[in-house]
């Protein structure tokens, strides 16, 4: 019998449900990819709607991944899988993942990275952070998004810049390192930046720690997100 007064472990419930949702969403996304492919090759005219579906499902997927990861971090069940990765290859993969959706909106994703560039980080986490920023830029960029990596003073500096109108002032004045905030007035959940700052902080090398930064201007005059990893 269900006892309505029994208190449930709501966060655990939420996490396991999110996990289940993610499985369904995964099937949905892969199937959608197949539909898009056959549809495009047949020259159907629902291309832009389908691409919007792809974009939105990716957004949901990114959010779910972030929620689950933050949950695990909160429960102290998360461990960084630090490895040495090829940054050039990682960027190529990001482009493969996002290019078709961005192209459908007339946005070009450009990468700048030394072919020999390698660095130490948690690949899934950093991919998550970059995908999330690129996904946001999709909404604001006009024609171009640049992802760039350079090595600077013992850090890898990965930045994502667009040619949109940039971040609203309210965003720029809050301390992104401490960002935990849900702001209902701006409609931002703050999840993406919070996740990014958590990921940055988890990356440490000896006495140095990763940081994030958001600014306007950047390479193309729009918003620019930067994550620096030691």
């Amino acid at each position, binding site marked *: 019998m269900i006892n309505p007064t029994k208190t449930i472990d709501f966060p655990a419930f939420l996490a396991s449900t999110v996990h289940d949702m993610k499985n369904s969403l995964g099937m949905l996304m892969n199937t959608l990819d197949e539909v898009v492919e056959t549809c495009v090759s047949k020259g159907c005219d629902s291309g832009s709607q389908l691409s919007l579906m792809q974009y939105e499902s990716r957004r949901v997927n990114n959010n779910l991944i972030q929620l689950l990861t933050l949950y695990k971090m909160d429960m102290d069940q998360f461990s*960084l899988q630090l490895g040495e990765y090829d940054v050039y290859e990682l960027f190529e993969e990001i482009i493969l993942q996002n290019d078709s959706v961005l192209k459908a909106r007339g946005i070009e994703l450009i990468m700048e990275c030394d072919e020999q560039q390698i660095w*130490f980080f948690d690949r*899934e986490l950093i991919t998550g952070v970059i995908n999330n920023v690129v996904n946001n830029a999709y909404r604001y960029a006009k024609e171009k998004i640049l992802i760039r990596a350079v090595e600077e003073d013992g850090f890898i500096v990965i930045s994502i810049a667009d040619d949109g109108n940039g971040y609203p002032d309210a965003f720029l004045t809050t301390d992104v390192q401490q960002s935990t905030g849900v702001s209902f007035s701006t409609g931002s959940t703050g999840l993406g930046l919070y996740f990014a700052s958590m990921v940055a902080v988890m990356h440490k090398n*000896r006495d140095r720690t990763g940081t994030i930064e958001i600014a306007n201007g950047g390479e193309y005059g729009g918003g620019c997100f930067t994550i620096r990893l030691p």
Partner: protein
Amino acid sequence: MIDLQKKKFLVIDDFPDFIKLMKRTLFALGANNMDEARSGEQAIELMKRNSYDIIMCDYNLGAGKKDGQQILEEAKHSELIRHSTVYIMLTAENTMTMVMGAVEYQPDAYLLKPISKEVLGKRIETLLLKKADFENIEAAIARKEYNSAIALCEEKIKTSPKNKLEYLKLKSDLCIRAGNLEAASVVFEEVLAIRDIPWAKLGRGKVYFLEGSYLNAREIFQAIIQENKMFMEAYDWLAKTLEELEDMDSAKRVLINATEISPKAILRHQNIGNLAFKTNDFDKAAEAFNAAINIGKNSCYKNASDYTGLAKTLVHTDSSEGALEVLQAAREEFKGDRNAMLQTSVAECTVYKDLGRDDDAKKSIQEASKIHASLGGAVPVQETMELAKACFSVGDKATGISFMQEVVKDNHDNDKVINMVEDAFEVADLQEEGAKIIAATQKEMIKLNNEGVSLVEQGRLKDAIDFFEKAAGRLPENKIINANAAHALLMFMEKNAVSDKYLFKASQYIDRLKRIDPAYDKYKKLLFMYEKLKNPT
């Protein structure tokens, strides 16, 4: 893009729709030779019959079922997959709490679902290229030519800056396998100078452990866990270190902490059981052995000692009847496995003794002795010693002593084993007699070895080979005898000509040394000699 048409795929998932989807995606990437399995059992059967190039395995295959990690362990353990096989673990979330087994049992990649066709194609291509890059080294490792493999690694480190760290990691591991701890240390220091990388820290700790600097080792392993509590290998090494320091309680606690984080590691439960038993913590021991038995049902690491351990524990908690049931279950589970039957019979003796059924206890001993004889020396020291103790317990002093002599003969220069033999004699109230037997047997072995050595010194290498081979046949666990058998063979080939037959024989003795004591100084030298003869230039 690599042509996937010629590659054979195996897709493992409990969810049929996912298998279909994955196969369609792979097909779109050019693959057309694909098998599917819905369970671990099915996957293992397929791997026995086919040789796969790429295996795509979902981690979670349902509650209570073999998971992706267990399939991988079994496939590697039973050599169902090749070194060049790419094993990809698919997971639905990027938290690795469930995985992280021993390093040698890690998949080539973890991929987060969902994964788009383009990204999957690219990852498979990268993995195949990387496997090809490591092919020569893997082949040398498979031939156990560790020094050649190290030389190949060094070449790659110079020419392939992108995978430098991975080659360094492999090199350090090979140095340890070849018994060259100093060279391994150099690699770890080199890596740690660049950055604090957990595997390099662990490696430094392992070197301390192997050198016997247990306090230094403990400090390092503790620091690793402090910084990264999910690094499971560090717990196992810390526990081993604490055991060497004879702090059994702490060792047990460390492993219990580890199982709370990663509950499926069967070997860890086995260790907890043994430690808990040694520290008279019988409730914990029973819990741990039960866990090992349950997990063992899906694992290639199931072991009769999980059952015998539980049975012996139950004797201490006044449930000897239950213990007999456990041992009966072991007889069914390990039918046809003589080593398991030996262990079971010895444990039965203990249980019957406790129940006051002395005749049954004696019968168990007879059965155990018979199995022991049929195994012809291929019995782990621990088992022979248990058998000897059981003999003492039923008052069969003469048989017990003869088993103990066997143990001493095989391990006359191993202080740890000799101490255990002394303890066993003491428990059986045979302290003085035991000490005499040990001393006499040790003396006999030293004499035996000296006889062979003198043949070498006289230049009678052929006779020395015959002598040591005969001795090593009777003493498969004796370090110095096996080392000298290999040495005589290698010296003969150095002087005369290299022959496949002698090379093969030498490699078998060297292999024994590696198993008995990988830190043994002579092992390193013999391996060098062997590889030099096998691969001149």
